[in-house]
């Protein structure tokens, strides 16, 4: 059903985040706030070297320290307890360490201070080995091996793809450009640092409070951990406290969680592990750094003929989900703009650097930086206006891309037009001022990466017209609580405040694959909508008997049930619920729904429609470059997105603003500085996250294409905000002063050096 003409009561309203007051008053309980009786505090000792053999660990002094309850080393970790998506990374290493963040020991003590002191008393003898820090060097035959049991530093991964015929297309192209781009490590910078509290009950079932975006998958990981510990057939309950930011950082289970479990089991007491900020910088995973070789061509009219990309990803010392980002990179590579012939190879290479994880955009920002910088270069070479060039190649509804993505709704052209309208691209009045544009495609209707891309919801109504909805989805600050409440309220004719969204506990919430891939509004939203529809049907059926009218003629609005065209026949929903409850036989209104989208897993061929629908966007930037210092000031920024429908424009803008500022940091200032594997700027003084004062005014036009599969037409918007930001800025800098910076972040140093080279 098309929603375009429909009048909404709750959907589309700017309702502030439901827990905003709670947070502003300091009442929301984060992992830091959780305290359990008899709780101990855990701490981790990390490696002193990027690469070394562990010769000997002496923990006797640490064990002897009063207040210490347990000290663990790699020897205490069950052989089968492994993390990461290829399950090759034990939570505490033994034998060899392969990056500075490798865990070598852990303690539990009665206070964090004692735990820290105990770490200082652990004596580790290392034999330092030659490290390898450059992934291209690590690919060479004579490079030292990061993992001795593997024959090569290159991971066995499938990304060697060829759609169409790139060689032929290149020969037939009128214009071709080719270049090399690099992106570096950046990190999520969640305001709430990582942490977990683990405890076992008397029957050795585990409860773990943890900051996670994947409660159900984490539950599975922890069940496997228990199995590895010899605890079979036990239960795991995952409870999420209020989460202070996710951005992809919580899409895996980590050493600190597994260590909390091991310590809690060893001590038979609750154990809390919370990272300090330095640890958060050093021991959590980053965005993948990439080296990107790109070649693109077009014909005389500017139509793209082919795209050929080769990537080297620094995988660091271990494999977390970062190594799977090439799957998502494939999406813009194969499908941003219409291009028939596509080649893509990616290699993930072990080094002794830190390792990577999901981060907002999941590879898309890296790929889009190269693609959209290169598109500008190609348009210039072809002598075609850069905006016109993009319009010529725009995606459109009904298109099936070489990868097999089926574009249903597509507002890319409207996004580009709205950026053009908001930003004066012709203005070249002032010296050093320039404009840039870049577009994006992203999954907007789930993403089938696992066997299931589903989410469950259970809905129950009380006697007063209030709803409790138990969703598998996760709110980590992005606003899934509001989205769920607004969707349910719209369907049941209630107010958002009537809906209590419970999303915190695997004991009471159904399964969900996780808050990733911008999927929650779409998938968890559809799950909630499905449950609400079932309850609505029950209400209609009941009212139909009461009012002696066909069920289809019963409407729910403004907390009332009434008959269409005959509004005098009405009853407050609460009253009707009580009537249902206390009628003979009794009747509680409840429903459950599991929504699993009809999208496809990419098979061996790496082809398939991985999402039900795709989100699009275009970003435009106006910058001013100080040609004497290289400093960039962002004067104006427009970020237009096709979101299907804005369920809550206020939160939607928040996602876009946040994404853009994250993207601006990626473009201009943010960088985890790594020297021979060691992180040199593990603090907010030296890691240049944008501050409130650096943030720029952002216009965020919303294009509503009313997607046929989205809840009330909505598509995902969690990640897109930070996807095309860096190339929009890079393109604007080029437009302003004629230098193209191909390595992120675009620092004043790089610009000034390039200007000096250009001007001789």
């Amino acid at each position: 059903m098309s929603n375009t003409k429909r009048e909404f009561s709750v959907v589309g309203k700017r309702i502030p985040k439901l827990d905003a007051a709670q947070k502003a008053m300091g009442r929301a309980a984060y992992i830091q706030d959780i305290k359990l009786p008899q709780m101990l505090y855990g701490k981790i000792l990390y490696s002193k070297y990027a690469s070394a053999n562990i010769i000997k660990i002496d923990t006797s002094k640490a064990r002897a320290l009063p207040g210490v309850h347990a000290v663990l080393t790699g020897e205490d970790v069950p052989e089968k307890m492994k993390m990461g998506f290829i399950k090759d990374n034990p939570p505490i290493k033994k034998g060899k360490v392969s990056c500075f963040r490798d865990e070598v020991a852990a303690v539990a003590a009665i206070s964090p201070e004692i735990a820290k002191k105990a770490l200082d008393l652990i004596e580790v003898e290392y034999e330092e080995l030659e490290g390898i820090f450059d992934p291209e060097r690590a690919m060479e035959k004579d490079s030292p091996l990061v993992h001795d049991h593997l024959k090569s530093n290159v991971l066995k991964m499938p990304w060697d793809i060829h759609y169409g015929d790139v060689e032929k297309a290149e020969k037939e192209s009128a214009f071709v450009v080719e270049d090399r781009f690099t992106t570096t490590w950046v990190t999520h910078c969640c305001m709430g640092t990582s942490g977990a509290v683990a405890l076992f009950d008397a029957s050795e079932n585990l409860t773990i409070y943890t900051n996670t975006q994947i409660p159900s998958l984490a539950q599975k990981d922890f069940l496997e951990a228990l199995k590895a510990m010899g605890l079979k057939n036990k239960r795991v309950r995952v409870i999420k406290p209020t989460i202070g930011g996710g951005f992809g950082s919580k899409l895996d289970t980590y050493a600190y969680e597994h260590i909390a479990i091991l310590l809690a089991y060893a001590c038979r007491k609750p154990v809390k592990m919370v990272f300090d900020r330095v640890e958060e910088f050093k021991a959590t995973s980053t965005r993948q750094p990439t080296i990107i070789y790109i070649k693109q061509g077009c014909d005389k009219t500017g139509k793209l003929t082919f795209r050929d990309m080769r990537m080297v990803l620094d995988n660091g010392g271990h494999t977390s989900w970062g190594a799977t980002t090439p799957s998502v990179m494939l999406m813009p590579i194969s499908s941003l703009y219409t291009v028939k012939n596509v080649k893509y190879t990616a290699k993930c290479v072990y080094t002794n650097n830190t390792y990577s994880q999901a981060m907002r955009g999941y590879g898309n920002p890296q790929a889009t930086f190269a693609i959209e910088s290169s598109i500008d270069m190609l348009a210039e070479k072809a002598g075609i206006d850069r905006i016109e060039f993009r319009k010529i190649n725009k995606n459109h509804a009904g298109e099936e891309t070489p990868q097999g993505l089926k574009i249903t709704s597509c507002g890319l052209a409207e996004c580009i037009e709205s950026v053009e309208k908001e930003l004066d691209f012709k203005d070249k009045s002032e010296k050093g001022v320039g404009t840039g544009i870049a577009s994006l495609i992203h999954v907007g209707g789930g993403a089938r990466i696992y066997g299931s891309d589903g989410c469950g919801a259970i809905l129950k109504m009380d006697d007063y017209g209030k709803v409790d909805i138990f969703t598998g989805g996760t709110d980590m600050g992005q606003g899934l609580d509001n989205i769920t409440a607004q969707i349910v309220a719209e369907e049941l004719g209630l107010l958002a405040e009537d809906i209590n969204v419970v999303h915190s506990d695997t004991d009471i919430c159904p399964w969900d694959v996780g808050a990733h891939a911008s999927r929650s509004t779409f998938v968890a939203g559809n799950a909630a909508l499905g449950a609400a529809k079932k309850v609505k049907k029950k209400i209609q059926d009941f009212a139909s008997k009461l009012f002696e009218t066909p069920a289809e003629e019963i409407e729910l609005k403004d907390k009332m049930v009434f008959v269409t065209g005959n509004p005098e026949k009405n009853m407050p929903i609460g009253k009707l619920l009580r009537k249902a409850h206390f009628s003979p036989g009794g009747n509680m209104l409840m429903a459950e729904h599991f929504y699993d989208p009809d999208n496809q897993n990419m098979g061996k061929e790496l082809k398939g429609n991985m999402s039900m629908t795709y989100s699009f966007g275009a970003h435009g930037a106006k910058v001013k470059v100080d040609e004497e210092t290289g400093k960039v000031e962002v004067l104006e920024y427009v970020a237009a997105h096709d979101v299907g429908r804005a369920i809550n424009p206020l939160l939607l803008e928040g996602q876009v603003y946040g994404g853009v500022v994250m993207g601006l940091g990626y473009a201009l200032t943010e960088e985890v500085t790594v020297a021979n594997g060691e992180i040199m700027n593990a603090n907010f003084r030296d890691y240049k996250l944008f501050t409130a004062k650096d943030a720029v005014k952002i216009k965020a036009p919303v294009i509503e294409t009313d997607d046929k599969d989205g809840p009330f037409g909505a598509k995902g918007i969690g990640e897109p905000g930070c996807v095309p930001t860096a190339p929009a800025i890079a393109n604007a800098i080029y437009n302003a002063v004629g230098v193209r910076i191909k390595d992120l972040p675009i620092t004043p140093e790089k610009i000034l050096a390039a200007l000096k080279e250009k001007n001789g």
Partner: protein
Amino acid sequence: MKPFTYLSPTTVEEAISFYGQHSETAKFMAGGTDVIVKVKEGWMEPDFLISLKRIKEMSELHKNEATKELSIGALVTHATLEKSLMIKNEYPIIYDAVSNIGSLQVRNVGTIGGNLINAVPSADGAVPMIALDGVALLHGPDGERSSDVKDLFLAPYKTILKPGEILKKITIPAQAPHTGSAYTKFGRRAAMELPLVGIGVLLTLDDDLETCTRARIVLGVAGPTPMRAFDAENYLVGKKINEDLLIEAGKLAADESKVRDSVRGKAWHRREMVRVHVKRMGLKCMNIIRANN
């Protein structure tokens, strides 16, 4: 964090005597924006923190209308300086420097005295105090003495202060007519930013409004302590100032600077920034002088 006892004397004498009782185990504290960070991180583990905050005379900001001497109590906060119209109009170099320190919260509690005595090469507040020929008044167990602010610093985190000595205030001598001054910090962000380099320039012109009679070019993060670029200063004195001369002074200052490569920034770029901003601040001084005339 190691626990400590918090002492809050109300007079300088009392503070000094507290220090006498606890000596090495005690540490003075003003706003605490440097001290508390260090204590929390475990870089410093005093048993006693002697807060100077309740010593009223050290919080005064006062200009003697007769002698035109400016007196800045060590406890005067950056926010107080930033909000003073007198400072903004008559000592723009101070305003420029303090109004961009950290964030509003940091400026509300951080003091000029703490900024000087903490003695990092990046202290924004040090540059204007040196450029204005500030004199530090010290008071310790052996009584009072004074020192030019420029001679306070020995090395990063090291000043000439003896154990138990307190910085009471900084006095700024009367400024000659036709004086302009300006400071800028070059950094990556607009807030919460230590300078990659800090550049302060002060120029005094003759009545002809062209000839330079006094020049101060002071650099932060250009060496282990805030430093004056004497070659550049000397180059300007006695000459009729124009943009070309300021460009040349920028080059000289850049040559004199002892900038280094670090994780935060490359030496060549810092040197460039000294060169560019000495010129820019010089021009800003000229504009101020002309506007005030």
